[in-house]
């Protein structure tokens, strides 16, 4: 183990109250069976998966429930055996509080596995085979956003110099990665070997913070003997677990603007995801469970629990010893980047790392906002090296051009600026709203462009139809005229005219005589 101090990312918060010791006192709790499982078809970033089961169908544990749809989507599997009871919109853990399509599964209690396609010897299997297993297992990044792991690992022949394992777990309260490393380091090491083989990565770096000495020790024991594999332990600082921040911290490199870590030969994966890769490849288990920290001053028995994806939060909290009476808020995620749950019946999803039960207010955002005094504290702590003050003014002025110029979309919404703001301005909320407004504007512009095209096309179509009609009429007229000059028709016409004359001569006198009669 080595300690590196010379490389660092800009800003960040040091010395945040961590409260991690709350939930590290007991081993990871065993899996338990909830009364029902609710599985949102979208488990993080990307498109909804497409259900392949019908209501009433019996499924086995690990069976595919919904397949990935499009390139940015993850498959969904049955966390236990049971019956599909509904496929309908339900409330999901999302800050919007809006419903989304979910599959509801009622467990039959047997917990019977379906057939598991495991690889006997992954390290000698071709990378494509391993990649196919990872795609099929529905793996998503377990650290935060739930980005499809298969997309991240689909490097398509681009060289990977470093496989960076994100074990920083920088947010206060959360300890699920810490406990995972303490208890399952050997399995993580196997996962690392599989991933290194898959990516043909030269170097492996496991990056963690110095507040997890037991986890780091366990990992270094498990990784002992692996070549080109090191564990780095950094001084605790939030948000060192941000992908770009961690790369700068561990490797001293910056991801280029608008680029991906792969552009500088790095693939960065959360340690929980590495464990899930190991489970998928060596045990054949798709991603159907994860470790969740249940903690906070409102939790009776804070700790980490292995939880089936889809378990309702209230059942998890009850299993974890319940909540104290004075709980005011139930937050999914950490105190910095988490969000309040609309109610406690929403399910645990693949990205749920923590359920935080709070009696007291966490950050000071509920207090009255004061004017910005241009102190610059926000710019000092911004880990993305942005200018939060400028962004704040332009967000208030709704100046999207300037916001993009000041790289609003590089903001990782870590909340450092809001945390240090002496005027308690909810800066991140402004940035989130401004990002949403810009995306909406762009969508409206795109829709307007399509509408313009369609209008122009319609006008052209109507003009063409009019012209065609005019041409048809002209043609008919011309044809009639031509008929007129036809000698046969002329002869006929002449005969008709003659006949009409005769009739006229016959009729005319009688008509005259008829007139004379009265």
């Amino acid at each position, binding site marked *: 183990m080595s300690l590196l101090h010379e490389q660092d990312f800009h800003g960040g918060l040091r010395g945040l109250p961590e409260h991690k010791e709350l939930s590290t006192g007991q081993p990871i709790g065993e899996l338990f069976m909830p009364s029902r499982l609710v599985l949102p078809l979208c488990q993080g970033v990307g498109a909804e998966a497409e259900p392949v089961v019908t209501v009433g169908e019996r499924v086995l544990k690990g069976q595919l429930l919904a397949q990935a749809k499009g390139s940015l989507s993850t498959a969904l599997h049955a966390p236990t055996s049971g019956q599909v009871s509904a496929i309908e919109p339900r409330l*999901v853990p999302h800050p919007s509080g*809006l419903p989304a399509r979910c599959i509801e599964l009622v467990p039959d209690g047997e917990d019977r596995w379906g057939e598991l396609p495991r690889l006997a010897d992954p390290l000698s299997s071709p990378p494509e085979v391993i990649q196919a297993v990872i795609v099929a297992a529905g793996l998503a990044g377990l650290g935060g956003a739930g980005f499809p792991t298969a997309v991240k690992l689909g490097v398509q022949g681009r060289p990977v110099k470093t496989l960076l394992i994100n074990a920083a777990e920088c947010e206060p309260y959360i300890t699920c990665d810490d406990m995972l490393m303490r208890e399952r380091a050997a399995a993580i090491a196997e996962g690392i070997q599989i991933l290194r083989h898959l990516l043909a990565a030269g170097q492996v770096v496991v990056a963690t913070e110095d507040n997890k000495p037991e986890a780091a020790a366990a990992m270094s024991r498990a990784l002992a003997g692996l070549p080109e594999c090191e564990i780095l332990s950094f001084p605790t600082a939030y948000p060192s677990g941000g992908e770009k921040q961690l790369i700068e911290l561990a490797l001293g490199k910056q991801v280029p603007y608008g680029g991906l870590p792969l552009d500088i030969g790095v693939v960065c994966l959360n340690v929980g995801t590495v464990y899930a890769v190991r489970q998928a490849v060596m045990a054949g288990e798709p991603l159907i469970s994860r470790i969740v920290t249940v903690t906070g001053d409102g939790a009776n028995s804070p700790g980490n629990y292995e939880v089936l994806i889809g378990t309702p939060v209230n059942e998890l909290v009850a299993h974890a010893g319940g909540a104290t009476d004075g709980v005011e808020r139930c937050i999914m995620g950490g105190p910095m980047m988490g969000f309040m749950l609309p109610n406690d019946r929403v399910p645990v999803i693949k990205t749920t790392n923590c359920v935080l039960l709070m009696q007291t207010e966490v950050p000071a955002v509920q207090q009255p*906002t004061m004017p910005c005094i241009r102190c610059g504290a926000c710019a000092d702590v911004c880990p993305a090296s942005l200018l939060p003050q400028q962004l704040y003014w332009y967000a208030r002025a709704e100046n999207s051009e300037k916001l993009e110029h000041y790289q609003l979309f590089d903001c990782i919404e870590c909340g450092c600026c809001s945390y240090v703001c002496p005027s308690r301005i909810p800066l991140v909320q402004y940035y989130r709203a401004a990002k949403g407004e810009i995306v909406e504007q762009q969508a409206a512009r795109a829709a*307007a462009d399509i509408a*313009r095209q369609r*209008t122009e096309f319609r006008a052209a179509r109507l003009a063409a139809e009019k012209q065609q009609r005019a041409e048809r009429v002209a043609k008919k007229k011309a044809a009639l005229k031509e008929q007129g000059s036809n000698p046969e028709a002329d002869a006929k016409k002449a005969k008709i005219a003659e006949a009409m004359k005769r009739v006229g001569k016959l009729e005319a006198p009688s008509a005259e005589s008829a007139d004379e009669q009265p």
Partner: protein
Amino acid sequence: MLVAVGVLALLAGLFGLILGFAAVRFRVEGDPLVEKIDAVLPQTQCGQCGFPGCRPYAEAIAKGEADINCCPPGGQAGVDSLAELLGVESKALDPERGEHKPPMVAIIREPECIGCTLCIQACPVDAILGAAKQMHTVIESECTGCELCIEPCPVDCIDMVEIKPVLATWTWDRPKSERIGVAG
């Protein structure tokens, strides 16, 4: 004296030729101002401005024949950006033209449709699908919410429905504790 006159005449002739050549060679097709105004307009094609579509309105603004506050779908934000583009003072949206509404989409109550095709002919963006004596339906993703199909429908089977945010289109709200006029 004569030399000076001659030189000036020569220069005038020379520059005249250059200008004449430039006028032909670098001729701008169409009116770029109309394009710019048209790009700001929401392309709803609703005709609430009194012109038969967004482009005719843009042309009228460019000629100075129409005011900039006649577009309810664009809202006050649209008026403001037109004012900025044209370098004039912004003004309030003309209430006589209608009010700014949230985004809407037309929905045909399909069992009641008699297949008259009148709405299809009215739709400025060809967003209604159907044929004579066949049921019609709106291609919702292409509908601009212009409401032009409502009036011709003989059986009143078209509803305008507000587009509700779903998870994929949801965005964060601005902070509610904003102290207007203090920090700005």
